[in-house]
């Protein structure tokens, strides 16, 4: 599940936006596992390692990239869900899962389907939150000049 968007003419301090998003993720109990910042790119990965979260379903991990310059940048959000890669083989009838999705098996495929929806909902929410942060951090409009 991926969302990408381009933001133009908003004059946003990307470092500040990135910091805001990071703080929002930490508040959601994500642990930042990768934090790669260069002059024009802000890239993080975060995971939920909490066992309760895995069982009840939810987003498994998040990857976020903000890249570009204040008036022209892209935001990419990738959310991985527990159980996303689970499938039932048509030949054998066995449940097949990638290693990373294995813990979701404990909760069965129904729970896995639920977690997929939850992750999608989380992705939508994060996308909207970032849009709001962009608007809040935008300095696009000319500031009123103080009388000299």
């Amino acid at each position, binding site marked *: 599940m*991926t*969302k*990408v*968007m*381009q933001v133009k003419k908003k004059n946003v301090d990307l470092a500040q936006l990135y910091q805001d998003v990071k703080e929002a993720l930490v508040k959601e109990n994500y642990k930042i596992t*990768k934090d*790669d910042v*260069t*002059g*024009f*790119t802000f*890239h993080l*990965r975060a995971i939920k390692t909490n066992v309760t979260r895995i069982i009840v379903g939810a987003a498994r991990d998040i*990857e976020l*990239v903000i*890249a*570009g*310059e204040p008036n*022209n*940048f*892209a*935001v*990419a959000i*990738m959310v991985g869900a527990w159980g996303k890669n689970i499938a039932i083989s048509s030949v054998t009838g066995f449940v097949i899962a990638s290693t990373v999705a294995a813990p979701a098996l404990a909760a069965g495929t129904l729970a896995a389907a639920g977690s997929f929806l939850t992750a999608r909902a989380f992705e939508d929410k994060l996308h909207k939150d970032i849009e709001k942060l962009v608007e809040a951090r935008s300095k696009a409009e000319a500031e009123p000049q103080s009388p000299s």
Partner: protein
Amino acid sequence: MTRVQIFKVKNIDLGSLYKRLKRSIEDDNFKVTSDVVTENVYHLRAEKAGLKNIIIGSVRDIELVIAGDPSSFAVVFNVGAWGQNLSITGSAGYIVATLVEGPALAWGGIAAAGSYVKAVAYERDFWQTILNEVDFQVKSGKKKDAKAEGEGVSR
């Protein structure tokens, strides 16, 4: 100088796209200084470190990011030029530059302006390369699909 574009409904192999673009950057005599690849993100930085390149003016460094999935992804390309941040202060008339632009000062503002123009040209040309490579990947994908369908029919 930054170019940003979102691509949708292309369904291409991002790993292959990245690999071909990286090769193209290396063919242009850039040295890749950082190469970060995850499941959904491809990010490289490359620079021209040779003194000759600094003196004659040219691109200082580039950064390329491809992020997303095959049918919805962003490409961001940034080019830094020697002397790009040079400016002359209105009040004192001094040339102001960041530390990293220091060597370009030896050639003054005109040389720096020249390098900026070259960087703009490089950005434009390489962006076209990116667009061409995306098209190439789309066509390659369609050929593979057609071949697979053909094999399916003959069985």
